[in-house]
């Protein structure tokens, strides 16, 4: 996977979540994703940015245009230095929540993208990497 360009935005306040959404929308439009794909990407970004803020005490999002042999895609990496997730399998399950939410953030956003990878270490933080291919 080679990358054409990238950008990083901070996620420290709930306004940053809005900015992160707008940034992803901008990139998705630029890369000529269909409206449905744009919407899926932006929605996934919103869920994951909120997770980084609410559970990870803030962090940042990295956007990157990626390409493999046959297609291009948009890759988003969400990193926080929060408490981490001790049971990732449970966290991915619909309805599982430690906050006050619906428990759809992780499992739901996984369904909205093509590649989904989560790395987390208790006490160190969490990194979620997603890619949606065109």
């Amino acid at each position: 996977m080679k990358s054409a360009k990238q950008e990083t935005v901070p996620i420290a306040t709930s306004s940053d979540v809005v900015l992160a959404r707008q940034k992803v929308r901008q990139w998705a439009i630029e890369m000529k994703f269909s409206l449905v794909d744009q919407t899926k990407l932006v929605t996934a970004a919103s869920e994951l940015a909120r997770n980084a803020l609410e559970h990870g005490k803030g962090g940042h999002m990295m956007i990157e245009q990626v390409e493999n042999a046959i297609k291009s895609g948009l890759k988003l990496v969400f990193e926080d230095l929060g408490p981490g997730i001790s049971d990732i399998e449970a966290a991915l399950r619909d309805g599982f929540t430690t906050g006050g939410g619906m428990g759809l953030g992780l499992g739901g956003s996984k369904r909205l993208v093509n590649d989904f990878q989560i790395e987390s270490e208790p006490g160190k933080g969490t990194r979620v990497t997603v890619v949606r291919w065109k």
Partner: protein
Amino acid sequence: MERIPILRMGQFLLVTIQVDMHDRLAVQLQDDLTEKISECSSRGVLIDISTLEIVDSFIGRMLANIAAMARVLDAETVVVGMQPAVAITLVELGMSLTGVRTALNVETGMELLYELRGDFHSENGG
């Protein structure tokens, strides 16, 4: 502080969400609407989301909460104008907005509200 305006139209309240809401604004709207229903003894709430480009789990939960709170206060809620791409994404996300009534546009939404209140003819008599 930034707020989403709530319009009163007879026995109903109308809200058009036209900004990309951050979470606190969504919670504020939920609180404001509940207050206003009680204050105006409103019988119904119409929420137009036709300009919303996404509905994520937080906004979805807010819509469900508003409908539930309104119900407890004896008011019906109809959410109108959801874009097709938003609907596809919302269902894939895992939210089907159970318990929230929807209509395609403001006009059919208003009709639904009158119908739900069982006083269809008051539309003209007001």
